């Protein structure tokens, strides 16, 4: 019942970035607002190198942005970058609904609701 839905290659990096559970935790931790690396480390019980590594991947695909404040680097979420993924999910749902709607129409025709049975 479920088929593949084409995805534009440009969104692949975001998909891959978000496929990793720790990176999703980091994104979750940034929902309330901007945070320094040290704060994320404290919040998530991940090591600093681990958090830095994941933040680098997230920055590369544009899911987080970074600014310097004194000696600290503050990271914040760029949720607009999630939009292509959101749209892709919607498309998947749409494709499934469309197929079931075709089945519905066909059942109606079979039962005499149209001229195409």
């Amino acid at each position, binding site marked *: *019942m*479920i*088929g*593949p*839905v084409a*995805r534009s290659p440009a969104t*692949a990096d*975001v*998909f*891959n970035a*978000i*496929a990793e*559970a720790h990176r*999703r935790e980091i*994104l*979750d931790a940034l*929902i309330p607002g901007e945070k320094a690396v040290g704060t994320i480390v404290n919040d998530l019980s991940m090591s600093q190198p681990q958090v830095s590594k994941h933040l680098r991947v997230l920055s590369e695909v544009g899911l987080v942005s970074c600014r310097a404040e004194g000696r600290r680097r503050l990271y914040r*979420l760029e*949720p*607009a*970058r*999630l*939009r292509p*993924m*959101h749209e892709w*999910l919607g498309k*998947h*749902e749409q494709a*499934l*609904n*469309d*197929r*079931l*709607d*075709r*089945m*519905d*129409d*066909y*059942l*109606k025709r*079979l*039962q005499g609701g149209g001229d195409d049975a």
Partner: protein
Amino acid sequence: MTPDRHGSAVIEFPSDLEIVTVRKFDAPIELVFDVLTKPEHVSKWFAPFTDVVTECSIDLRVGGKYHIVLVTEDGTECSFRGTYLEVEPPIRTVATWLFEGWPDAHAVDSVDLHETDGVTTMTTKLAFRDQAGRDHMTKFDGQEDGFNKMEDYLRSLLEKKGSASA
């Protein structure tokens, strides 16, 4: 008059490996079962109008195989095949599901039908069998941990940050 049920499918993701869809049809259960399992019916609704079903064979018995091939507008061939594990007309079928674009993503597709007052409710469950399928889904579709978590998560991010103007 029967209600317009277009777009009414409820799609849920009860676990990391499962996709469950529930949809009602205003038709008796026997007819819904036939429309799902007889090639002459399936070939009429399975593909969008822009696609052409080039093969549709269904051997509806335990151990029997089905194979559906459709060609999209741009010439891409999509091939679905599998083997029936359970056949219980008109209430249930369980079959393996293999889409050739995802050669490792073995799944089991079960369909359950239930009729009440002339309305048949169809519940389908596509369950990916193992890590290989799951990894494959990740590779091609970013679904590693299931759509439910991802979608909730996306929604929470989009709502909290209010960034609908991408």
